[in-house]
């Protein structure tokens, strides 16, 4: 027997597999598709479910995402595994022109309960064509919900919420978090809400908004800052679209300072959007200029020493905070 608040220790990656297993058990209209899923990621699901609901796809990203859209339009709730986030570009037509627009273009006649999962493979020496963090690109598309869980519990709970949501959801998973273990709720009906950021650490001097895998760095930065007498509040954004501007604005209203940590490239990043939003809606509460800590506007190099220097770290966040005073 499991109790309502029982937990089990799972890695971020295991939590994703469990979410899929539970949702496939709960609803027979949930199917899973993707390249090589029979060998990577979903092996254990093949022991429980047959090939009708688990589809190893050919290398046809645009079409298998579109097949997911077509299936979603007609009664299924597909989870499409797009493996590496840099492959989103191949599927962007079906994601943007079809999934995101079909409900609108049909005057609300249709809905697209589709989940697309994809992983950001940065800091992994895979070079420029495998290492992108393209979430801002999709944030610019109305109609898509964009999630970026940063903990194992959220990886599970948000994926489950996405499967039960009636709109197209894209989830960016972060491979740098894959092995992080945590106590994850066992109850198959515990969901993590879409559209709600979470204050992971309370503070009063500065707000650090963390996007996706920046969270461990932001929390470490807050510890370092605490030793130096600066009280940092850390907000885990969790949902990139729709943005939870309320939680961010409320925090900035108390701290007066804002740092946004985001591993996408600086120009037009999630950090840019948050900075613009706070400048428009919370300007009076800001005591210092907003700072973005992001990847610079260059491509990801193969060389590991250089690659590491591109991304958000504890120290980069700490120094950004220190420039504020």
């Amino acid at each position, binding site marked *: 027997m499991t109790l309502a608040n029982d937990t089990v220790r799972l890695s971020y990656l295991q939590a994703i597999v469990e979410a899929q297993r539970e949702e496939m058990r709960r609803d027979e*209209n949930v*199917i899973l598709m993707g390249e090589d899923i029979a060998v990577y990621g979903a092996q254990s699901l093949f022991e429980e479910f047959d090939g*009708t*609901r688990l*589809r190893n*796809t*050919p290398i*046809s990203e*645009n*079409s*298998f*995402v*579109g*097949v*997911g*859209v*077509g*299936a*979603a*339009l*007609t*009664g*299924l709730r*597909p989870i499409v595994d797009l493996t590496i986030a840099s492959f989103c570009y191949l599927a962007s*037509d*079906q994601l943007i*022109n*079809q999934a995101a627009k*079909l*409900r*609108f*273009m*049909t*005057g*609300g*006649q*249709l*809905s*697209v*309960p589709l989940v697309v999962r994809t992983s950001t493979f940065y800091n992994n020496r895979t070079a420029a064509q495998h290492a992108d963090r393209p979430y801002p690109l999709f944030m610019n598309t*109305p*109609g898509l*919900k964009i999630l970026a869980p940063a903990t194992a519990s959220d990886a599970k709970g948000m994926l489950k919420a996405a499967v039960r*949501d*009636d*709109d197209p959801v894209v989830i960016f998973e972060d491979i740098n978090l894959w092995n992080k273990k945590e106590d994850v709720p066992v109850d198959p009906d515990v969901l993590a809400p*879409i*559209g709600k950021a979470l204050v992971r650490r309370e503070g009063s001097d500065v707000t650090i908004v963390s996007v996706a895998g920046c969270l461990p760095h932001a929390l470490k930065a807050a510890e370092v800052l605490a030793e130096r007498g600066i009280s940092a509040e850390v907000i885990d954004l969790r949902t990139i679209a*729709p*943005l*939870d*501007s*309320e939680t961010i604005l409320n925090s900035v209203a108390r701290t007066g300072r804002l740092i946004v940590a985001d591993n996408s490239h600086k120009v037009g990043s999630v950090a840019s959007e948050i900075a613009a939003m706070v400048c428009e809606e919370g300007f009076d509460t800001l005591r210092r200029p907003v700072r973005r800590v992001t990847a610079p506007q260059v491509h990801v190099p193969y060389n590991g020493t250089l690659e590491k220097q591109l991304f958000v770290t504890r120290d980069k966040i700490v120094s950004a905070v220190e420039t504020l005073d």
Partner: protein
Amino acid sequence: MSLDSDRQLEAFRRMVRIRLFEEALIAHNPVGHLSIGHEAAIVGACMALRDDDYVTGTHRSHGHPIGKGAEIGPLMAEIFGRRTGICKGLGGSMHLTDARMGLICESAIVGGGFPLATGAGLSAQVRGTDQVSLCFFGDGATNQGTFGESINMAAIWKLPVIYFCENNGYAVTTPVATSHGQPDIARRADGFGIPGVAVDGQDVEAVHAVVAQAVARARQGEGPTLIEARTYRFDEHSNRLAIPIEYRSQDEIEYHRRERDPVALYRAVLCERGRQQECEAVENEVRETIDAAVAFARESPEPEWADLWDNMYASPPGPEHARGDRK
């Protein structure tokens, strides 16, 4: 699997509806890509489907919902951009989706419908129904990657999908002959290990027969078929497009209008079968339907600002969405 006597007249009715719908647009509201010349291909294909079968269309898709039996008024109102339109005036000429009739998308992105139709086939297979899905597309669309990607997936999974090409010989001004390494489109099926059939797209009963066979195959779990209906577009690519060159001869156009008009051809067949009066009655009835649809569209209100926001999400995402520009 041939059309019985009642269905023959219904096929004629739907063909006349398409023709007069398009002619009304030329007269009253010249927007969009017209299906005049394609009527037999469209209706022949749709008459082989059930109401609960799925259809995806294209930019040239006024005919597809009409062929599937959709109500005319909301289609006309949609093209007029009205709130009473089938998509509340938010979709327009290239997106006349009537979900009640199994239409799930008309893609204005050439080739965009292949994956969606394939996914609807997958859905029917997973849910264990015997529905099929039929994907309409043009000759030009066969040069998109989604054509091969999607047909391949339908082939390996034996999905109940009919890929139905309305080959009118041109993609805007580009002829098939100069843009297709294998201009014989039905033969492309060989590359995917599925049947490919070419048919005279101006002969509604011939089209119906080949589609009915493909549908039966699909319902029995034997997988997809590629059908190439050879047809011809009587008007320009689209109503508002200026064509600065003569990419097809006047003789060619005149020949098709004179000798290969699918509506006239089928009327002649039905008259030969002694059904002239019935044909005339259908023509009168359709004329009234179309006039009423134009009047309905004209009198209908335009959509409102709030409609933009109300049709974005099935599960509205919360406060941010409700803020700002909505007001």
